[in-house]
């Protein structure tokens, strides 16, 4: 791969590592959670609780997966 394409790929890879990190499912859950919260709110259903629930659940799932990998 030649510049400037290789630079764009390198920057994209850096941003991905920086923001998303080593477990993409956590970032995906936050994104899905925000979309669902917006949909619930648009239908006049209380949605403030959804993101905290996702945070607690996804942390547990991610930690369990990480400790499974370490074994």
């Amino acid at each position, binding site marked *: 791969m030649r510049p400037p394409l290789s630079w764009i790929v390198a920057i994209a890879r850096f941003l991905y590592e920086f923001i998303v990190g080593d477990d993409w499912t956590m970032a995906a859950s936050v994104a899905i959670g925000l979309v669902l919260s917006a949909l619930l*709110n648009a239908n006049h259903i209380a949605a403030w609780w959804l993101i905290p629930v996702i945070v607690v659940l*996804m942390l*547990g799932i991610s930690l369990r997966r990480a400790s499974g990998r370490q074994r």
Partner: protein
Amino acid sequence: MTGVVAVLITTFLASAVEAIEMVTIVVGVGATRGWRSTLIGAASGFGVLAMVVVVLGAALSQVPIGPLRLIVGALLLTFGLQWFRKGIMRVAARGLAGIGGQDPHETAEWTGPGMDWTAWFLSFKGVVLEGLEVAFIVVTFGAGSNQLGAAVVGGVGALVIIGAIGFSLHQTVRRIPRSLLQLIVGVLLSTFGSFWAIEGLGIEWPGGDAAIPGLLVLYAATALTYITLERNRALGLRPAA
């Protein structure tokens, strides 16, 4: 509206987490390769970080507060969850231990003439790479709370204090429980990230700003629970059926 104290504490702690490693690198390079080039490298690195804060801060100040809170909240939550998760794993594995490692003063000093570009580059790289996360947190947190000045003061304050400790008491800086600090910052970023992202969607929290301490308690309790579970798992213990 997020109080100035909350902004100061969060950015101070976030900056302290990265400053520990940054100062360890700079002190290590300075002790082995000589101080002049190392300090010039560190100063160049801080120059780059200052530019990142100014450019990113100016860009974010143009975004209206509603969409800004959604963007900043989502970014802080995603980023904060990384530190939250790493903090739990590291505190569960190592407790309150510092970063450890070899004493930089155990190796001989390099005494070549002129500018030592290796020292300059190592120091510059250490400051930029470790400081980029701090710059990101300072700008996004400052923009989200509409208190960029306080966020910068918190971030710079931690760098100055950890730097002073690092240069005067070389061993002490590596005994600071970095994993615990990382966990605390992860909890704080996740708290404010959750709050702002939901607010940015136009959703009202029950009790308004009073929801922030509630989220903080929930996430802190989550951290304690998962640390206990991780420790039990590492010891091969299973909860009673």
